[in-house]
C-alpha cells in the first residue's frame, strides 16, 4: 500500500493557479459552477481575460459586495456579481450562440469522471432520489474550443476518477482537452492520457498506480 501522506496534494487554490497558467491573454472563458468559479480569484492583471456567464454576461467582474448587490445582475450560480468596464449583456439564445457556436475559447467544468477518450460525466450520479438537473453543462462541454476539467483525482473512497469508460451518466463524448487535479495535470490526446506534471512527493509510477488507467509521461 502506497504511503499517501508524503504527497503534497495540490489545494483548490493550487489547481486554480495551475489552470490560470494555461489561459492566454485575450481568452474568453466560461467557469462552471462550484470549484471552477474560484479560478476568477487568480486571474493575472497583466492579461485581459474575459469571463462569460451563461446567463448573458460577457466581461463579468468580481462578486458584488454591499451597495453593489443587484438581484438583476447575477452569475451562473445566481450570486450577485459586477460588470467590468467593457462588459456586454445579451439574451439567453445569444449567450448560448457564444457557447455552442464555438466562440468561447476555454470552459472549465467540474466532473465525477473523465474517460481515457475524454468523455465527461458531471451532471448526475444516477441516484434515484436526486433531482436531475443539467443546466448548461452539455452545451459547454461540446461548444467551447477547449474543455478543461478541474476535479479531485480520487473519490472519497480512493477510486480514480480517471476511468476507461464512464459509469456515471454522460455529459458529452470525447470533449475534454485537459484535466487538472490535486495530484496532476493530464492532457487528453489521440495517443491517450499524457501526464504533464504531478504533485510534489509523488512519482510518475505512483501516479500511474493511483490513476488506474494507462498514462504516458510527457517528458518521455
Amino acid at each position, binding site marked *: 500500500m502506497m504511503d499517501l501522506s508524503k504527497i503534497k496534494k495540490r489545494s483548490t487554490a493550487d489547481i486554480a493557479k495551475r489552470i490560470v497558467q494555461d489561459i492566454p491573454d485575450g481568452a474568453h472563458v466560461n467557469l462552471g459552477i462550484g470549484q471552477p468559479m474560484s479560478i476568477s480569484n487568480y486571474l493575472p492583471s497583466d492579461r485581459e481575460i474575459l469571463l462569460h456567464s451563461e446567463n448573458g454576461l460577457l466581461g463579468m467582474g468580481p462578486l458584488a459586495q454591499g451597495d453593489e448587490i443587484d438581484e*438583476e445582475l447575477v452569475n451562473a450560480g445566481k450570486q450577485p456579481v459586477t460588470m467590468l468596464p467593457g462588459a456586454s449583456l445579451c439574451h*439567453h439564445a445569444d449567450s448560448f450562440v457564444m457557447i455552442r457556436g464555438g466562440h468561447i475559447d476555454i470552459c472549465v467544468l467540474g466532473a465525477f469522471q473523465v474517460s481515457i477518450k475524454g468523455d465527461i460525466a458531471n451532471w448526475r450520479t444516477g441516484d434515484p432520489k436526486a433531482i436531475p438537473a443539467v443546466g448548461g453543462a452539455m452545451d459547454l462541454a461540446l461548444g467551447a474550443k477547449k474543455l478543461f476539467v478541474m476535479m479531485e483525482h480520487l473519490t472519497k473512497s480512493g477510486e480514480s476518477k480517471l476511468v476507461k469508460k464512464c459509469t456515471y451518466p454522460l455529459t458529452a463524448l470525447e470533449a475534454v482537452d485537459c484535466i487538472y487535479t490535486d495530484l496532476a495535470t493530464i492532457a487528453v490526446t489521440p495517443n491517450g492520457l499524457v501526464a504533464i506534471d504531478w504533485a510534489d512527493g509523488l512519482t510518475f509510477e505512483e501516479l500511474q498506480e493511483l490513476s488506474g488507467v494507462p498514462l504516458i509521461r510527457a517528458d518521455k
Partner: protein
Amino acid sequence: MIQKEVKNLAEAVSDIPDGSAILSSGFGGAGLPTQLLEALYEQGAKNLTLISNNAGSGTNGIAKLVIAGRIKKMICSFPRQKEEWAFDDLYRAGKIELELVPQGTLAERIRAGGAGIGGFYTPTGYGTELANGKDTRVIDGVNHIFEKAIKADFALIKADKGDRWGNLTYRGTGRNFGPIMATAARCTIAQVKEIVELGALDPEVVVTPGIFVQRVVLAGSKS
C-alpha cells in the same frame, strides 16, 4: 390606435385557461416575473405546462404554483437550487412530470419556436440519456440529435421599461430568456417597472420590438 397597456396584473392574466403551456422568463430570481406568476396563482388556472430555466425556489413565483399543484409538467434545464423543495417533493412523489433540457437547447428550441422553425440538429446531448428516442444525424462528420421547437400559449416575462406599443428594455442579466420567450408565445404578457410615453424609449436600445408583445402591465399594479 394600439393600446397594449392593461390596467392591472389580474386583468393581464385573466384569460389564461386550464391546460395552457406557459413560458416564464427568469434565471433564478433575476428576470423572474414574480408579480405575473402571483396573479396567475390568484387567477386559479391549473393543469399547466410551465417552461422556464428553473423549477422555482422558496414559496413565491414558480414555487407557489408548484406547491399549489397547478403545474402538471415542467420543462426546464436546472430544477435544483437553494431553497427548492416544492418541486423536489412532488417530483419524487411522481406528481409532476419533468422534461429536462440542456440550457442552450432550451434557449434554441424557444428561439426556433419564435422564428417559425420546426426544430434543429445539435451536437449537444448526443450519446447521453437526454438523447434517448431522438433522431440522430451526422453533419460534417459530427453526430447531432434533433430537437423540436417550443411554442407556447402564453409567455410571462419581466422587463424594465415598456410603452403602449409593447416595446421593451431590460436591465442586467434580468434579460435572460425574456426576449426569446416573447417571440414564441401566442400571447406575451410583460410586467415592467415603468410604462413610458411612446417615443421615450430610444429605438437604439429597445431589445424587444413591440410586435412580439401583446400586453404590458405595471409590476406594482394591484386590481
